[in-house]
């Protein structure tokens, strides 16, 4: 065999041998034996090689579990004398420094408004925002959004995957968002609960993704009527650990489209998931929707794990074993949450300027409240509506001037005070005293109605007119 001589024999830096002995039984020539000297650096007793009869078969190399354990001897080097660092190198990777490809905003011609169901408006917003990947599991009352994308995405060579569960869904998003692409899901309360673990991982690994939760009645299976019972999950309960995400609360089909588009930009801007919290009523509501003046062709961020040379050095993980490392990572996340809190508080103030009483409501209840404000104003009662558009961060800044001035707040919600809790917490953190606070609450798919809001304000405000 002519090749025998050219096959390198093994060599070993003793400090990288863990003394498992696999190579000993692997060698057909009995060249390797358990050593007798403990290596002071490792505490192991490395094997000893006697290569006189070694034929370079390489079986021992294949049997050694350590990447830098047994290895083929380098040519023409007296390896006994060299420093492993020098031979092995200490470069982390040969991959290039990744470069971002920026997103592109492409102008749209002026278009007539569309007439769309809320869930459809959101799906179209996603398409315009450059989302071409959807993952989801069917759940009423969110499914129309998924169904529309199942029909439209393939026509744009996009991908629609019906996952085996919501748990699988969120993890597919972890992969696809981790690859640097814009992806989303539609879900409803029970499904959202199942996604929370994965959302925590996404936040930990700083992976963007858009979660559209059409909230329904709970707890448990509840029903498919509108509720706002997941505000606590979205604002305070995104899985385990120190997690937050921007939570957007649309209240018209128009906002279903606009805020879905915004959600993608925000998710990538902050490298964090974004939650859209809608309600069952809004998902089913059809209305006029104006189209934006642009759409987005997404680029590819520098941090993506895309599967190409440009991004080879990247890693997505949320595990940091060393306590100081994990503390530093949390500090970094806290910085990000602080930035979101400073930069993204959004609210819509309707006739609040001179209001003595202010209603606080979001989603569909905010529309009932808006109707009530109009009705009460017609009767001369000075009432306004404060409608948070971001539920987290709670828009405490625009609310602050009102808090000092108004006679009272009335929180109107389809739920047990979860919006009120966000308001109280935000005020308390800001050190602001609250004026008298009242509430109108309904559950189980029943929404607060305009007339009862009118009646409540009339009563609280002393029936003035």
């Amino acid at each position, binding site marked *: 065999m002519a090749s025998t001589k050219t096959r390198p024999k093994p060599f070993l830096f003793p400090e990288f041998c863990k003394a498992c002995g696999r190579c000993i039984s692997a060698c057909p020539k009995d060249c390797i034996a358990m050593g007798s000297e403990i290596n002071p650096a490792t505490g192991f007793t490395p094997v000893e090689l006697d290569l006189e009869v070694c034929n370079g078969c390489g079986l021992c190399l294949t049997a*050694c579990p350590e990447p830098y354990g047994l290895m083929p001897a380098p040519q023409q080097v007296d390896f006994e004398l060299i420093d492993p660092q020098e031979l092995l190198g200490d470069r982390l990777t040969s991959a290039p420094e990744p470069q971002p490809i920026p997103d592109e905003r492409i102008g749209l011609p002026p278009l007539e408004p569309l007439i769309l169901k809320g869930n459809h408006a959101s799906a179209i917003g996603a398409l315009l925002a450059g989302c071409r990947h959807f*993952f989801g599991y069917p759940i009423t009352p969110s499914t129309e959004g998924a169904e529309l994308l199942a029909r*439209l995405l393939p026509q*744009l060579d996009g991908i629609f995957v019906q996952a085996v569960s919501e748990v699988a869904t969120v993890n597919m998003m972890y992969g696809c968002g981790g690859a640097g692409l814009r992806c989303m899901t539609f879900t409803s309360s029970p499904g959202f609960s199942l996604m929370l673990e994965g959302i925590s991982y996404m936040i930990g690994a700083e992976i963007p993704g858009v979660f559209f939760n059409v909230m329904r009645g709970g707890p448990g299976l509840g029903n498919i009527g509108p509720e706002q019972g997941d505000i606590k999950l979205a604002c305070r309960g995104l899985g385990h650990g120190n997690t937050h995400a921007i939570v957007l609360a649309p209240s018209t089909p128009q906002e279903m489209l606009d805020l879905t588009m915004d959600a993608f930009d925000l998710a990538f801007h902050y490298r964090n998931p974004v939650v859209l919290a809608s309600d069952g009523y809004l998902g089913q*509501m059809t209305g006029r929707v104006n189209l934006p003046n642009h759409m987005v062709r997404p680029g590819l961020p520098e941090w993506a794990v895309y*599967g190409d040379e440009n991004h080879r050095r990247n890693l*997505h993980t949320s595990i940091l074993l060393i306590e100081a490392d994990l503390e530093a990572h949390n500090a970094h996340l806290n910085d990000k949450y602080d930035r979101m809190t400073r930069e993204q508080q959004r609210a819509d103030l309707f006739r609040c300027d001179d209001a003595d009483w202010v209603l606080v409501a979001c989603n569909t209840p905010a529309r009932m409240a808006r109707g009530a404000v109009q009705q009460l104003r017609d009767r001369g009662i000075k009432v306004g509506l404060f409608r948070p558009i971001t539920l987290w961060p709670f828009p405490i800044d625009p609310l602050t001037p009102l808090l000092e001035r108004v006679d009272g707040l009335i929180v109107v919600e389809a739920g047990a005070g979860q919006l009120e809790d966000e308001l109280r917490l935000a005020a308390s953190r800001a050190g602001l005293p609250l004026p008298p606070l009242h509430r109108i609450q309904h559950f189980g798919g029943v929404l607060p109605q305009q007339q009862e809001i009118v009646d409540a304000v009339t009563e609280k405000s002393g029936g003035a007119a």
Partner: protein
Amino acid sequence: MSVFYEKFERHAHGEGLKGHSTHYCPGCGHGLIHKYLAETIEDLGVQDRTIAVSPVGCAVFMYYYMDVGNTQAAHGRAPAVGIGHKVANPDAIVVSYQGDGDLASIGLAEIMQACNLGLPMTFVFVNNAIYGMTGGQMAPTTLMGQKTTTTPEGRTRLMGEPLKMAEILGQMDGPVYVERTALFDNKQRNRTRKAIKKALTLQVENKGLSFVEVLSECPTHLKLTTPEAERWVKEQMVPVFPLGVKKDTSAEAEAWFDPGTPAFGVDEVVDLIGGTDQKPERFASGFPTHIHDTDISIKFAGAGGDGAQTIAMLTTRTAINEGWDSTHIPSYGPESRGGTSYADVHIATDEVLSPASPNPHILVAFNPPSLEKFGPHVGSGGIIIYDSSVVPSPPKLDSGVKMIGVPCTEIANDLGKALVKNVVALGALQAATELFPEESFLATMRQALQDRCALLALNEEAFARGARAYREATKSNGS
């Protein structure tokens, strides 16, 4: 071996020996499998394209070592994460690397779906019959009688039987290649190297999903030396988990996964979402202020299948085409069939505030329960249209409310299509309320039925008959 990092910077910042040695215990099979993966990736020239998905388990830190794109997944979810990566970039070579707890316990649903989808991906399943990372608890693949920290007296039937993943997945249609190999001697190690190479090659050739189960040694938790552990796998595990190819259809498999490059052309997108710059024709001269100055509220109610939603939607579309804001909300009864189905519509000059219609200006009722339930909430000056074919004796309501019975069902049956009774009602509604001109509703109807011309004539006829029936009804009432 260039697919390993020159220095394991991520392993405790690469300090000291950690920069060049793994975190695995002496003799652990993971190191071997990493080595075979690394050499295959190098041989196939796919280092840049490879994404290694590491699991939760002892291999959670595979990304310390492999100089490829790395993603670390939640426990059991590596297949789902891998699918996300593969559909994001079909050129990526995705390797999902999982242990027995990860793949065969908590992640069963995900591996089943991945194998069912059969996307060209590579699964390496490390079966060492025990939980390593958490300290030696029972795995789904733990042998009967085997002692672990959670089976202190040995695994019994009460804890289930060892799960044979290669056999299970080998029966599925998705994978093209499924094999079980081992590491306990030179022959088996070579078999494993070849299997990993084949599995990755099939992905590089875009032919399909491969699954390689490797029987591996965990000397630490077996409390054996490495040579003893090798023997244990050979003598104890192999009889339960027979080695060999479980499925191989790779010879017939053809390259297939090619979803194309996502499109972002303006025209394509605008066309797809139905965008147009064509203004709808308007027929009305202004807002129907004879009903309300700024905000008109309507309720359509009937049984599921009465078509209340369809005409509610037509009304909303008509209003928006006329340039006003309008909303439609459907509400269904508890049963989707035969229950109540009602729709609330608002039409506003400016912006619809509350979209609910608890006290509508106009009610269209298709059956007695709907009329009884919603009729009393129609305010004075309001209009109620009901199907007199099914409501022979309407309840007495506020004298300020105009009640109009139109035999919608009869007329529809007469036209030979019971389903159009809703359009009959819509014709009557137009005539009774003059919400918008007749042409306005007809234009919306044409728009909605543009792909189904055959139905259009029938619907137009139904609309006209409804309007006529209203006029006849009011004539006979003498009003």
